[in-house]
């Protein structure tokens, strides 16, 4: 049977992987390193055939995490097993051997370092993204109690849309399940002073907006009941103050349209 064509970069990647296996104990490498490299080559080819370069990138990310975790776990397990036997300082010898090997092949060492740097960088980026989007809670007190409600209108094929203003008013009047409710509408406004007029991002919100989020303004006061009809006061963000007015006291006298 013909061997499938090798993915590009397979040999270099397998060499880097072989170096990474030095994270494992000497006993593990003696028994399984060659098998592990063979399996790495098989999986590398498989991922390239399935998903191309994207598959290779994901495979390397998983491999780095996998080898780091299991290599250290294996090393610790081996250390506990031979506790008390000081004559076998395998880790130090392995480390010195790895450094000498890399010095003898500087091109390979640079390639390996770049591969590791890219892999670690991509891994950190991915985990940062997952952390900020999925794991880290919203920056509000008791944010796990905040929920967002939608309307569904199956007759026109919409299964998720914001409620109409009067529906929201009905919800707010009739519901007893929530401590407070708010609705918002993202829009834009115009900042004007003597010298310029600029469009700025803004939101029209009901008066309970900041109570729902559990935050209070650093300066001034929160919105009050009924003052939002039809249009009430404006709350300026700190970023707005920095970008447009430079100094907070100059906010006074700003006209909003």
């Amino acid at each position, binding site marked *: *049977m013909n*061997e499938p064509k090798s993915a590009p970069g397979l040999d270099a990647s397998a060499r880097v*992987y072989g170096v990474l296996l030095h994270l494992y104990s000497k006993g*593990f490498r003696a*028994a*399984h390193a*060659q*098998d*592990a*490299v*063979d*399996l*790495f080559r*098989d*999986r590398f080819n498989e991922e390239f055939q399935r998903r191309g370069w994207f598959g290779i990138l994901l495979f390397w990310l*998983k*491999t780095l995490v*996998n*080898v780091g*975790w*299991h*290599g250290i*776990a*294996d090393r610790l397990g081996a250390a506990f097993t031979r506790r008390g036997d000081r004559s076998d300082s395998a880790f130090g010898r392995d480390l010195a051997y790895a450094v000498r090997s890399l010095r003898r092949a500087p091109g390979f060492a640079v390639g390996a370092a770049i591969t590791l740097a890219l892999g670690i960088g991509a891994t950190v980026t991915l985990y940062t993204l997952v952390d900020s989007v999925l794991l880290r809670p919203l920056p509000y007190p008791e944010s796990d109690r905040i929920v967002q409600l939608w309307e569904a209108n199956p007759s026109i094929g919409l299964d998720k849309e914001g409620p109409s203003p009067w529906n929201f008013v009905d919800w707010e009047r009739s519901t007893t399940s929530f401590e407070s409710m708010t609705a918002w509408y993202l829009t834009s406004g115009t900042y004007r002073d003597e010298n310029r007029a600029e469009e700025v991002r803004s939101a029209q919100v009901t008066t309970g907006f900041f109570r729902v989020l559990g935050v209070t303004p650093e300066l001034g006061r929160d919105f009050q009941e009924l003052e939002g009809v039809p249009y009430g006061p404006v709350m300026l963000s700190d970023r707005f103050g920095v970008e447009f007015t430079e100094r907070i006291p100059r906010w006074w006298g700003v006209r909003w349209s």
Partner: protein
Amino acid sequence: MPQQSPLNQTQFLILLVLLDGPLHGYGIVKEIAARTDSGVRLEPGNLYRFVKRLMELGYIADAPQARSDESGRDARRRYFSLTRKGREALEGDAARMRSLVLALESRQGNG
């Protein structure tokens, strides 16, 4: 005989796929992925830690005879087979899980 501690999921799956005969590392990975709808996909770094542990426990062993049946690249691969002790551990764990499932089902039947 002292009672064996339960196998973890990966150990169980490795022993399970070796029931049908010796496999090399990549064969084990592919077989487990196929049987779990790709839900469990072992990588080189962790597969051989499990293999090492199962060999230490005497549940699997080298199967050199399998290599002579292969040609080309597969001939130099290392094959693993289930030992009698491994089969007993697998069957013991399966019985343990079966009794747990039965206990759950009888409770649901009563509820």
